[in-house]
């Protein structure tokens, strides 16, 4: 009774699993884990976005100014010269008796560094608060962009944070340039909604004022969305900020059937909105989106309930995208494009085809050579090689790894290198045969001798590949993944697989004693 050939069993199991799990990738079936193709192979849009974190800090300062403005009015604290710059908010308290009141209010806002000079306050963010604000802006941007793209209706968009405050966006399967354009605009849209009060006293002079003069009054000039020549002079500190928005939907106006966007505010927003409209009847309230005034209606009465409308000549698609953007929240900080790669679907298909040709060609050449040189041992090595390819594909499919063009090259290269272990083993076996060892001994000791070399060599290669993975980006990472799986697979197939096969055939090899047939080496007797 022959001992169970455990090595062969493990190898066959690996082979069967490998073939089984790589089938979905080959046949592109619906079920089962498949290798996902990189954008360079299937076409699509890849972008690296940088978050402009300075802007996040600036808008944080602005919102603090808004809070101080709202609170002081509500509590009848008289303040003057409330100004916000890029880094700080300053104001003067008119009545020293209000000091404790305003200070207890400031204490409620976290992360403020307050400097006091008599009754003149200057407020900065603490360093920790700056860091936290920047962090929050980045993760909020990731979340927001993901939400927007999800609602846009694309297949499997990837949005991920990358080191140094960058965001990676991948959109596979974008087919037309128009689609791409729309997706990019949707991402870029700040969707920063502000409700601002018109400076009623000075509005008539808006066309004479420079930006600097306006800001000296605490005002800002924004153009009209439809007519850029028409300008509004608005109080720079907004009444309300889009952060208090809970929902935005497209509707159609009853007067002219134009698309409009209805928005709803949260309870705090609704309260501020109600208070402001209640005490400013007869004045104008401007609805500002991303630095443009959409409308500036006169307030007729107190508006409770916290809902409003943006109208302003949208197209239906546009209104839809603006609503998506508003709903998924404003980008606290605008993003800019650091890197963009778009690959047309035809180029991707061509790349797949060419690398498949290379793969088959390389395999064929190597396999023929191995049989010529090593005889039947060469066939064993080829079986290991084929198993290797299946295992690489199935492991990649299992982990959902992405196959890129350099990754394909990595697979092709693995074929060249995968036979290395078998070459080392076969050379050792030949050597031992020459020294006069029996076939059984030659195989056993051949494997034993080859082992340290194979392990050391593969392990050092593995180290470099692991470093590549850690430091590489995009295609290099893909290459590192395929190479490392290839290295591990080739160790499994070469060390266990061919050994198992040799053991299985051992009785026959010993019986025939034709070493030239089995090992491609003629033993001189």
């Amino acid at each position: 009774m022959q001992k169970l050939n455990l090595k062969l069993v493990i190898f066959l199991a690996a082979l069967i699993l490998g073939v089984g799990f790589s089938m979905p990738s080959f046949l592109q079936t619906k079920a089962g884990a498949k290798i996902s193709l990189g954008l360079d192979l299937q076409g699509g849009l890849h972008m690296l976005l940088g978050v402009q974190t300075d802007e996040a800090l600036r808008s944080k300062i602005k919102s603090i100014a808004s809070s101080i403005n709202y609170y002081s009015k509500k509590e009848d604290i008289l303040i003057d010269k409330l100004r916000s710059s890029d880094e700080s908010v300053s104001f003067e308290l008119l009545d020293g008796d209000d000091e404790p009141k305003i200070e207890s209010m400031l204490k409620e806002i976290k992360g403020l560094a307050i400097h006091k000079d008599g009754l003149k306050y200057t407020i900065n963010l603490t360093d920790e608060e700056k860091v936290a604000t920047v962090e929050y802006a980045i993760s909020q941007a990731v979340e927001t962009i993901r939400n927007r793209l999800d609602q846009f209706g694309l297949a499997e968009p990837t949005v991920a944070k990358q080191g140094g405050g960058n965001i990676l966006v991948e959109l596979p399967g974008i087919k037309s340039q128009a689609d791409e354009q729309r997706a990019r605009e949707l991402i870029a849209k700040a969707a920063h909604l502000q409700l601002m009060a018109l400076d009623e006293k000075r509005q008539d002079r808006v066309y004479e004022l420079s930006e600097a003069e306006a800001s000296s009054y605490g005002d800002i000039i924004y153009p009209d969305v439809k007519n850029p020549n028409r300008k509004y002079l608005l109080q720079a500190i907004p009444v309300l900020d889009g952060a208090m928005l809970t929902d935005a939907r497209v509707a159609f106006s009853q007067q002219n059937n134009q698309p409009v966007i209805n928005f709803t505010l949260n309870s705090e927003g609704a309260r501020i909105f109600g208070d402001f409209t209640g005490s400013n009847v007869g004045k104008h309230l401007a609805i500002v989106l991303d630095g443009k005034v959409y409308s500036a209606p006169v307030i007729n009465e107190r508006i409770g309930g916290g809902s409003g409308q943006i109208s302003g000549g949208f197209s239906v698609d546009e209104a839809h995208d603006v609503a998506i953007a508003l709903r998924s929240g404003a980008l606290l900080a605008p993003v800019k494009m650091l890197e963009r790669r778009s690959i047309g679907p035809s180029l991707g298909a061509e790349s797949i085809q060419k690398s498949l040709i290379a793969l088959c060609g390389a395999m064929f050449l190597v396999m023929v050579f191995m049989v010529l040189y090593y005889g039947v041992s060469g066939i064993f090595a080829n079986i290991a090689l084929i198993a290797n390819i299946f295992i690489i594909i199935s492991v990649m499919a299992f982990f959902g790894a992405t196959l890129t063009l350099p990754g394909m090259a990595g697979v092709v290269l693995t074929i060249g290198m995968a036979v290395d272990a078998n070459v080392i083993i076969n050379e050792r076996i030949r050597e031992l045969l020459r020294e006069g060892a029996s076939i059984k001994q030659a195989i056993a000791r051949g494997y034993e001798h080859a082992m340290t070399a194979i392990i050391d060599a593969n392990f050092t290669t593995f180290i470099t590949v692991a470093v590549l993975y850690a430091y590489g980006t995009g295609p290099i990472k893909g290459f590192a993944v395929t190479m490392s799986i290839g290295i591990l697979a080739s160790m499994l197939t070469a060390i266990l697989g061919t050994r198992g096969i040799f053991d299985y055939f051992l009785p026959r090899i010993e019986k025939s004693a034709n070493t030239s047939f089995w090992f491609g080496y003629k033993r001189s007797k």
Partner: protein
Amino acid sequence: MQIFSKSKVYDFMRIRYASLTLSAVLFVGSLFLIATKGLNYGIDFAGGTLIQVKYNTPAPLEKIRQALAKDDVFKGALVTEFGSNEEVVIRFSGSSSNLSQDVGEAVASLLKETGEPEIRRVDIVGPKVGNELREKGAMALIISFIAVLFYIAWRFEWRFALATIAAEIHDIVITIGAISLFDIDVNLDTLAAVLTVLGYSLNDTIIIFDRIRSGIKDSKSTDITTIINESVSATLSRTLLTSGTTMMTVLVLFFFGGDMIHGFSFVLMVGILAGTISSIYIASPFLIWFKFNVDKFRASEAAKIKAKKERERERAMYEKGVV
């Protein structure tokens, strides 16, 4: 089939000065090229914009240049054929960070009059990203050197580690020299190829070193030069076979893999050649130069075995409860 007579020991080390001189010339020449001619950084590292356009007729290069010159943004753009005469690549150093602006569309509308252009690829890389990639690439190289150095020093001996690194530096410098000489674009794929060369050459060196290590233990000779000759001869057919099969696949990649991996496969070809030569003629002579002492190595190996036995003996005693 077999190529080399197994029993024969070739005297590789006899011509080591000649081969070292050749390597030194290639090495210094490469350094000179890198310093004077420099590297042709593709947009991955230098930043800029690359647009690949395909026509269904031969691409009218002159017309394309004229059409592009109409817009200031594309002034000075480089227009070259890519792979076939139907395909062109347009390259310029500018890169827009504006998300809603589309360079591809702008180019498409400019090129309308030149035929039926299909925009197949648009790559835009900002300058900051390029810098970051370059730094990361250099970092990856240094860290993998250090990691490998430690691993080999632990598995072999420190002289083996230094000799390996010397061979690595040799291969990488010569490969980069070839990249400079043949004006190959340095992009992410090229970097991946250089690092593959590193892995391949390491593999090759380690296999020979492994044989030298076992030769030191088993050989009758105590002369390191003799042992190196014996070991390199014994591994010669393996070295050439593996280089051969790998080279075959790389050649297939080069000829049939498409233009996108042309540079990649060319770099690999140079690297495999350099790597094969260096494992024989750089790594091994360095062992001699570092004054590797066979007797000392044997003594230290023996001491290691003795120490291991001692530990086992102590454990056995402890387990039996004698101590």
